[in-house]
């Protein structure tokens, strides 16, 4: 396995709370890895470190051979916009924008012209079967539709890595299945790696393998 994104010996404390205590992780292009473990074990913290959002106290995160935290903040922000996509449990769409504008947003922030960005957004939304809600605001669509809009937004830049933290957590089983199926299909078609934090085994069953976090350490880090 060639590691696309990897971390070794991550430590992170929030005040007296030790969230990560030497976590290791690695993921290859096109691979879907489920990050599992009890509540408070450090899954989200691990994901945030891997995505360059939270700086670890110790340890390194490497992406395509470069040390993520050796970069400047501006470089990391730019990298997140071009190479990474994010899906969270809720509250991630901008309420004032239409669903189409939300999906187009990452491209617009990268400097793509409106027409082109919205055409690309419409295409991804069609793939996720939410083209019908394009003109609506996020407040006017169902939870499942909103989540698929969020997945569309994460996919629109054709990222190398998607970080998904409980992407199906707020959804019923059927909507959750659809989100997972579409996330995984997109990942396999475009060789996108997916770091999938979930506590649901049925959702984790869409992954290629699992990494279990317990007390800030990763276990069963099986290398494919």
């Amino acid at each position, binding site marked *: 396995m060639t590691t696309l994104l990897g971390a070794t010996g991550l430590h992170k404390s929030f005040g007296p709370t030790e969230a990560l205590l030497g976590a290791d992780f690695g993921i290859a292009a096109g691979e879907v890895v489920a990050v599992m473990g009890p509540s408070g074990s450090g899954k989200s913290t691990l994901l945030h470190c891997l995505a360059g959002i939270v700086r670890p106290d110790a340890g390194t995160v490497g992406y395509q051979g470069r040390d993520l935290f050796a970069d400047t903040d501006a470089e990391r922000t730019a990298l997140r916009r071009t190479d990474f996509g994010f899906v969270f449990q809720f509250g991630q769409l901008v309420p004032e924008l239409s669903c189409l504008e939300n999906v187009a947003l990452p491209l617009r922030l990268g400097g793509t012209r409106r027409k082109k960005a919205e055409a690309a957004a419409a295409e991804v939304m069609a793939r996720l079967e939410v083209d019908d809600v394009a003109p609506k605001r996020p407040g006017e669509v169902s939870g499942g539709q909103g989540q698929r809009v969020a997945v569309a937004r994460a996919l629109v830049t054709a990222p190398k890595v998607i970080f998904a933290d409980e992407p199906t957590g707020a959804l019923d089983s059927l909507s959750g299945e659809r989100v997972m199926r579409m996330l995984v299909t997109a990942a396999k078609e475009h060789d996108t790696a997916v770091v999938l934090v979930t506590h649901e085994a049925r959702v984790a069953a869409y992954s290629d393998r699992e990494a*279990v976090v317990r007390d800030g350490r990763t*276990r069963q880090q099986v290398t494919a």
Partner: protein
Amino acid sequence: MSIGHTLLGLLEEGPRHGYDLKRAYDERFGLDRPLHYGQVYATLARLLRNGLVAETGTEPGSGPERKSYAITDAGVTDVERWLATPEKPELYLQNTLYTKVVLALLSGRSAEDVLDTQRSAHLATMRKLTTRKTNGDLADALICDHALFHLEADLRWLELTAARLGELAKEVAE
């Protein structure tokens, strides 16, 4: 699983030959275990004896595959009764898993290790089911989902048990 009731249910759509019946069964319900001809004909013979099906015609030649069967009124009543009766809730793996977790804790071993090992085995099976579901038709999806939910329930119960007993063990140690 009651093969007799299932065959009766399939005959409600209309009379069929034994061979057609087997094929219809395998297509819809035989994902894991297609029926043997022997099972089909033995079951049909029993249904015939009990008046739940009737022979509706025999094509030239001999052998049960030439015969066509239709469901009787008694057969329809029997299917209805079967559908209206709940299945006994099954206990699956709880006993063994519970024993393992408790024994691990009693012997000072890690219940979490038991959990991790079991989770990874469960997930391996669940991945296969998910692949089959993704590539299959609606019938595949329904059958696989049933297994997936049960396997997930095993894991959730195991996680809760390990957490509960873990806390209990800590209290006892203090």
